[in-house]
């Protein structure tokens, strides 16, 4: 029994570490309405194409919140650069939306989408 426990402790510890490190493809997925990054991006894109800038502004705020939720969940398994780049794209997007600049907003939306895809890609 003692021997089993002695082997089991390091094995379980290693499994736990591995789960922490490779958990991001699962953890980046949406668990509620507030953290669905791809869906929010889709909504903002539709608003921008339809010149609906008031809704786009609300959408970007929602996207920022969703990105923060995802960041706190995947922070132990994802490299910081991807999370920071996504954050910066959202900040820039806010400016483009404020200026009703569809080209800039769409470009940053594409960037955020790419950063989200990079999470959990090794």
């Amino acid at each position: 029994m003692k021997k089993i426990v002695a082997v089991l402790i390091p094995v379980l510890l290693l499994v736990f570490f591995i789960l922490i490190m490779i958990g991001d493809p699962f953890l980046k997925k949406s668990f509620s309405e507030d953290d669905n990054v791809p869906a929010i991006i889709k909504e903002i894109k539709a608003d921008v194409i339809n010149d609906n800038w008031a809704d786009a502004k609300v959408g970007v705020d929602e996207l920022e919140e969703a990105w923060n939720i995802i960041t706190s969940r995947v922070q132990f398994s994802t490299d910081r650069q991807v999370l920071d780049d996504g954050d910066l794209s959202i900040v820039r997007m806010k400016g483009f939306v404020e200026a009703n600049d569809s080209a800039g907003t769409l470009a940053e939306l594409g960037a955020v989408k790419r950063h989200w895809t990079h999470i959990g890609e090794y």
Partner: protein
Amino acid sequence: MNEALVEVVRALIAFFTLLIFTRLLGKQQMSQLTFFDYVLGITVGSIAASLTIELTYDPWPMWLGLVTWILAVLAFQLITVKWRYASKYIDGEPTVVIMNGMIMEAAMKKLRYRISDLTEQLRDKGVFDMSQVEFAVLEVSGKLSVLKKSQHQPVTPKDMNIKTKYSGIGTELIYDGVVVENNLKQVNRDKKWLQKELKRMGINDVSEVFFATLETTGKLYVDRYQDHIKNKTDISDYDGPY
């Protein structure tokens, strides 16, 4: 993102991974490490450090790199244990640098081992007179093993035909004020006996003892927390503060 928290988690992952895997690697002593083992150690430590502080990299590929290095070491260890030829090929062989009192210049040249290295390592072994050396072997670890000429070897009790008592490894009976009951049982003694022995030495309770062993000669070695030394030998010439 809480950077400090992420670093703490990554540090713990690296720490316990190293702990678990180095335990798996076995009990190879630092002094027996070859130069390659030494470099391996530095590389593995460096990857573990990067895993902890390089937050701009995913931890998983780094961890995999760390584990791959350690598993490669483990694989080589297993190969060299199972296959003597591979062991010689990978780790190299000890080289005789002094044979029958003569320095083997060709062997030393091959190893890029200088005469100053040889004399330094001989001095380290307490040999200041080259003429006393019969054999000197440069081990795989880089250490020098020296066999002095028979006339320069210390006299042993056997040479003098003196009978000696058996001397083995002592058994720890008290560690940090606590009786090690398993060991006590192993040497066929009980707590009653231990208390009686301690009382004979003027010790009333086990908690007064820091360390006690039963030697193979049957003698009980006891060290108390209170050493009662009146004239302490102070080798320090530094006043402080620490």
